[in-house]
């Protein structure tokens, strides 16, 4: 039973593997026929629009939008919970919607608070 359910997903993996197998030879072919001339160290420097690159490329970089990332962690899970409810809605009694509405209310309150915090950019 479990194996059958997992087996229905196996063509997805097959397709993933086939796409790699079908396009991978292009890289190998390119490596074989493309010219590889004059190995100078300048050629292998990182591209920085003509400047001589300084320091590491992997630096600390502040994106300043942490609140959105935190919200994502919460609301991605929440939306999948809603799917469990939405896909079985036709078989449920109508009273079963009330707890979900209450859940949505709690969630909207938290969401509004998080968005309010996201708007206050000076605290991040």
């Amino acid at each position, binding site marked *: 039973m479990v194996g059958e359910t997992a087996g229905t997903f196996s063509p997805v993996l*097959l397709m993933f593997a086939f796409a790699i197998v079908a396009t991978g030879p*292009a890289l190998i072919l390119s490596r074989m026929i493309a010219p590889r001339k004059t190995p100078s160290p300048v050629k*292998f420097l990182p591209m920085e629009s003509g400047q001589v690159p300084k320091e590491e490329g992997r630096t600390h970089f502040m994106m300043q939008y942490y609140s959105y990332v935190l919200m994502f962690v919460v609301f991605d899970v929440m939306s999948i919970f809603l799917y469990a409810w*939405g896909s079985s809605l036709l078989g449920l009694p109508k009273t079963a*919607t009330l707890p979900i509405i209450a859940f949505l209310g709690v969630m909207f309150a938290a969401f509004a608070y998080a968005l309010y915090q996201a708007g206050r950019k000076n605290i991040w």
Partner: protein
Amino acid sequence: MSTIAPQFRLSRFIASLFDIIFWVLLIFSLVGLPIVFIILFYIKLPIINGQLMTPYLALTWIADPSQTVPIIKSLIHTTFFHVVAFPGFGFAALLSAATIYVERKFLAKIQLRVGPLYCGRIEGILQLMGDGLKLISKEIIIPAKADKPIFWIGPLLFVGTAGAFVSLIPVAPGWVVANPTVSLLAVFATIGFFPIISVLTAWAANNKWTFIGGLRALHQMIAFEIPLILSLLSVVILTGTLNLSQIVQSQQHYWWIVFAPISAIVFFICILAELERIPFDLPEAESEIVAGWLTEFSGMMYGLIQLGTYLKLYAFAGLFTVLFLGGWNGPMVWPPLSPELITHGITIGPVNVQIAGLPLFSQPMLNGTLMFVIKTVGVILLILLPRGVFPRIRIDMLLHTGWYKLIGLAFVNIFIALGLLYAGVLGPGGLIQ
């Protein structure tokens, strides 16, 4: 003065030829044949016309063209054919390649340019092939301090994930590569891999531009994943299923864009953002960060990323068609194919063409594919259109749009769907069946 080496002797040459033939035969019979039979042992041979299809029988039938039809018919219903050719990679790659050409001509016409013109004489129709040859013959340069294994497999992973996404899109009744009962959730799971690949390759390249571009891609895809998921919830509420094929079957009489127009608009905007297309192409903004997370890709690696992007574009357009525009449903315009075509051929006026086994596919499948392709091409053109018209927006505006407005609009349509269901308009026993 001969060009033959001075030590050359014909007898030795012939002896070496025999030597090579001997070793080839020996290795083939000791290694090759056992491998063939071990593989044949594990392959489940099909039964066609009441006969077990052994390799001898298959070769016998192939030798007789009038008996080849059942073999081809059994072949086109295997998973292998589905993955390689029709609803899978070959079909999607063909449509993607056509999209690249159409995009260039279409945008050129919008902006009063000409676009590709010379390659292939007729309106530059071979431009794509020329570009492919150019890319494959260019040197692949990898930065010295890059994380080489991850940098190499990044484009391959991108194409592979796009292929996995394509495999979940149903094209015609029964014609889908993978059909799990929760295929919509599988779509969400597949979409979730794209930002990871972007950030991995961006980090591996050891370049400031790629790093900034990768972080932007991460933020953008994350911000638009929630409204994307929520906008499809109204369709799921109305159909009560997570299977994409069943969602298409539920739209036989009316399309869900009629009852969930706000969801469709939200989903369309999210498609633009997930595909990193203008006006949401911040991760690849040329005028700000060179080429974003694609900066260090050169030659065929860049070509593979482009192929993956256009496969993803086809898959998203197909998903929009399947969920909101009725998928393969439509008027039956394909002419019926009678079984006598196999024996009598086609008669058009005075000409009689005898082609054995022409109706390999059934009429609903051909008509469904035609309808699906027409709708999908329409959606693809709509996705391409903003690139010729709109400027790029700022990242804080983008995040604000994603998190405030689109999520709110998605919830509006969820409540509309709930209202339609509970007011008895839709659903089992509703006014509109």
